[in-house]
């Protein structure tokens, strides 16, 4: 079972990292405008469209890129990933997120 689905480890390790890179750089392939109730491929002016939600795009990007990478990377490589990395990577990510978001609490 562990070898058959070894690619799951890659997906799980990459998903959070890709998501974080996208949110850090504010990259998004699309945005959702709740005031207009519509998705847009291009950013719209805030005066006309209101605030945009990028979270959906970050999740979609993380899903697509992690899935592609986990399918492209050979299974043999995935099998060799130490199991500890699967939880250490998100723990590091949590610390990075908390550090990055500290500006909300410290002026």
């Amino acid at each position, binding site marked *: *079972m*562990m070898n058959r*689905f070894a690619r*799951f*480890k890659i*997906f*799980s*390790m*990459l*998903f*959070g990292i890709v*998501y*974080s890179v996208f*949110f850090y750089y504010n990259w998004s392939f699309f945005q*959702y405008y*709740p*005031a207009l*109730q519509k998705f847009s491929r291009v950013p719209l002016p805030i005066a006309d469209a*209101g*605030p945009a*939600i990028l*979270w*959906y795009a*970050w*999740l979609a990007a*993380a899903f697509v890129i*992690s899935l592609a990478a986990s399918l492209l990377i050979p299974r043999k490589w995935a099998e060799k990933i130490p*199991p*500890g990395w*699967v*939880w250490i990577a*998100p*723990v590091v*990510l*949590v610390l990075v*997120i*908390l550090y990055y*978001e500290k*500006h*909300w*609490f410290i002026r």
Partner: protein
Amino acid sequence: MIQILIMLHVLVAVTLLGAITHQAFSVMARAPVSAPLSFINRYRKVHSPTFTNTIIVLFLVQIVLGALLYPRYRLDVRSTLEDLQLRGANGLFEIKEHFAAVGLGLLPAYWLFWQAPLLPEYANTRKYLTWLLAFFVWWNFLVGEYLNNIKGLYP
């Protein structure tokens, strides 16, 4: 409609909280067989693998419900928090959405390490993945409740 979605979000959250907390306790070091059957020991003595698929389904449902509620939050709640200069509350929500995303990505690995047979060499990975998910679920629940009740907390 929005009230129904919020109620559903809370109910699923409570169910998820119960399931993940049970499993998180169950992967702690086992008490000796001779130890008295205290409340905590009974609480831990569950068949943890049976929770796995339920936790994954509930987590996914929570993501969908959260995504459906997000537009209303972005328009009404966030702008109110900004008007009231409650930066900390906004920050807590930002962290909540990031933790939900990281937790979502962890689900495949979490599922994998909980598959039978539960090999002892993966016990630590299983434990830490479960604790991480439990941490995300608890954080998101508490922040969600705080934001939901914020009007009553600040005059």
